[in-house]
């Protein structure tokens, strides 16, 4: 059934379709609509779940961990300051191997206060051990949450679904809401292999010496790497039921491209339009949307950029004192390839500036021809900076 909904409403619908059993959340703009919708859904009796209006994001994640350990399918959502407040528990969730799924609405971190889109909040959590997926549109949000539960419960690892503040959270689009019966077949109820059980007592998250610690972490690292393949496999299965594919990378015109524009989130749509514009000018440009950042979708990235000589990254985030975070990730992968690939990293659209075709085209020209207005700082070029 098609419905016109905002990205946040699509997220709430997905949580309902996933028959989540415990929702624990603290409201924050622009995530609030998600949890408001969910409390309404539960209030109307459309979802049999326990809703916990906790006093902080730290507690929201802590209670999701507890609920998941008890065998429940758990969900939370946050954004920006809230997400960084639950940082400790994000590490814990991954270490405890609980298949919690959360939505993060990518919003700038203060100060100065800013409610708009910026990816630094979630990218700063990339070492916590969560799978990270960045959505392109509202349909992607709904579908990715369902796929995320499927993947998380196979791997026993948590997955974070990210959506751009306002561009996605508060923009209405037509969304195909799948049939509950079909979702129930794609995503059966969570059957934990191990859980808190008074009749079969065990201690979770106990003390462990160095002898076993390394092996436990090694195993977790291997399992986290496997999320890439698990996601792509689950996405194909999902496509079989619902005829929509959500792979870990989305390539556009990369087959013959010399230059590839790379980004994450909603701006990748504008990147594809910019590719069309630049191709009209005779430049052999393609674009690549990295839907997954953790684990890094190495396979999809290498396939899409095998013949590319110049990679242009537009980061909506920055690691201060270093460079754009996605640029860093790409440099790490490219270094392993031992090939002479050029990389130009831009920072643009932070704190809500629109990354439009008009933003992207001059940046690509600057990257290729060296002439433009983006200001240089270390190895990054910053767009939209005062002269």
């Amino acid at each position, binding site marked *: 059934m098609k419905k016109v909904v905002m990205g946040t409403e699509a997220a709430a619908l997905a949580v309902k379709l996933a028959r989540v059993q415990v929702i624990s959340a603290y409201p924050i703009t622009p995530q609030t609509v998600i949890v408001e919708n969910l409390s309404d859904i539960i209030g109307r009796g459309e979802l049999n779940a326990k809703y916990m209006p906790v006093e902080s994001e730290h507690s929201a994640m802590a209670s999701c961990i507890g609920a998941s350990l008890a065998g429940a399918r758990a969900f939370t959502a946050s954004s920006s300051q809230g997400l960084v407040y639950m940082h400790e528990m994000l590490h814990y969730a991954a270490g*405890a191997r*609980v298949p919690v799924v959360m939505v993060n609405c990518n919003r700038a971190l203060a100060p100065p206060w800013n409610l708009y889109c910026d990816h630094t909040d979630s990218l700063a959590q990339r070492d916590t051990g969560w799978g990270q997926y960045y959505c392109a549109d509202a349909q992607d949000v709904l579908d990715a949450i369902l796929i995320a539960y499927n993947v998380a419960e196979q791997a026993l690892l948590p997955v974070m679904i990210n959506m751009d503040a306002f561009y996605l959270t508060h923009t209405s689009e037509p969304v195909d809401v799948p049939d509950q019966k079909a979702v129930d077949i794609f995503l059966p109820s969570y059957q934990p292999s*191990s859980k808190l059980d008074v009749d079969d007592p*065990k*201690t*979770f998250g*106990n003390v462990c010496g160095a002898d*076993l610690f390394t*092996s436990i972490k090694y*195993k977790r690292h291997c399992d986290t790497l496997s999320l890439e393949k698990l996601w792509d496999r689950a996405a194909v299965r999902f496509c079989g039921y619902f005829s929509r594919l959500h792979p870990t990378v989305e390539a556009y015109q990369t087959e013959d491209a010399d230059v590839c524009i790379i980004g994450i989130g909603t701006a990748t749509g504008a990147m594809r339009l910019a590719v069309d514009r630049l191709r009209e000018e005779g430049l052999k440009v393609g674009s690549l949307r990295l839907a997954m950042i953790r684990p890094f979708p190495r396979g999809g990235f290498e396939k899409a950029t095998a013949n590319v000589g110049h990679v242009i990254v537009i980061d909506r985030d920055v690691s201060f004192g270093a460079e754009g975070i996605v640029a860093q990730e790409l440099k790490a992968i490219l270094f392993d390839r031992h090939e002479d690939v050029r990389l130009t990293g831009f920072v643009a659209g932070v704190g809500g500036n629109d990354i439009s075709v008009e933003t992207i085209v001059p940046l690509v020209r600057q990257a290729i021809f060296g002439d433009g207005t983006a200001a240089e700082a270390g190895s990054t070029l910053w767009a939209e900076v005062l002269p």
Partner: protein
Amino acid sequence: MQSRKGIESLSELPIMPSTIGTMAWNQTGDWRYLTPVVANKLAPCSQNCPAGIPIPIYLNALKNGRIQSGLDLLLAHNPLPRLTGRLCYHPCQARCVRRKIDRTISIQKIERFLADLGTDVTIEKGKKTGKQVAVIGSGPLGLSCAFYLGCWGHQVVVLDPRNQAGGALVDRSPEKVDSQVLADEISRLIRLADIKLETGVVVDFDAPGNVVSKADLIILDPTGVSEDLRAPVGAVGVNPFDDEAANSDIIAPRLSQNLKPFKAPMIAHYIAAGRLTAQKAFNRLAMCSGQQGLAPPNPDLLPQTVNTDDIKIEHFSSSAPVAEAEAQQEGAWNHERALHEAERCLSCGTCDLCLQCVSFCPDASIKLDEDKTAVIVDEYHCKGCGICAYECPRGVVTMETISG
């Protein structure tokens, strides 16, 4: 560090870090700088009771269906409960914390119900000492004094020049003091404490050869004999509440102005004075025979009164309202009514095994003992977080600095 017994390969590692092993080896008790102390404290009602009756404890016994032990306990602190249950001005009720929630507990009505049951009770008695004590006068002070001395093993004779026992109580109007109740109460008292009561006896200290002259110690009951009776030579006035010891074999308890002349509503004060006089008499006899007397109460060991701010009234719900008329209802209460009232008791300062502390302890370090009669702290593992003390609705668990 634990050995990796049983886990030899990656495939054997549980995916979720978990173990079926115990964490008892991790003795976190030495992290603690404050220790939870589980100790009953004096409830405000008991603290205000002239006779110091541990009210919540006997109400708990009643609540739990142990009527007999409730009555035993009551009698151990008050040998005349049928009379106090009718006459006392019940200062206990003035301090009842329950009034913050709805209305005070009618402690006196419950006391009267329990005392009127008249069932046989057993009182713990000391072994026979072979000493004889004569109590002259059978007023409430004399009877109380005789009761305790009898319970502690002395051979006690109560002598009253009048034909009816009860001393000053006999002079009250029948509406105030029912003579049958008085007679029954005295007969229970003398039976329990194995006392001999002689009424209509002419007490003449100058004519030896009678009971008085054979006694090792004589007590003159100010609530039993008229002030006309001339105190014999050698009698020493002793204030039961203020004086530490009685240095004479003839003790004449001296009452403060507020207890003179005799006032029936103050009966619990006379009972307390009787018990304190008995202690002094017991110590005097023990001292004379070279035996050890009752240890004087060490003020540090006396139970503290619970801090009423520690009674967390938010844990208790308001009971179904009982019409004021019924609450004030004259006369006796039946079992159901008394039980309902006893159930309203908050048990201030007195553990009633609600186990709130046990369920809230994050480290399973406060638990029921093996007999399931008390809550104990596992000192090897308790970290001293204080949640038990915070959660205890009754002020029983407190955090204390304990050295060593």
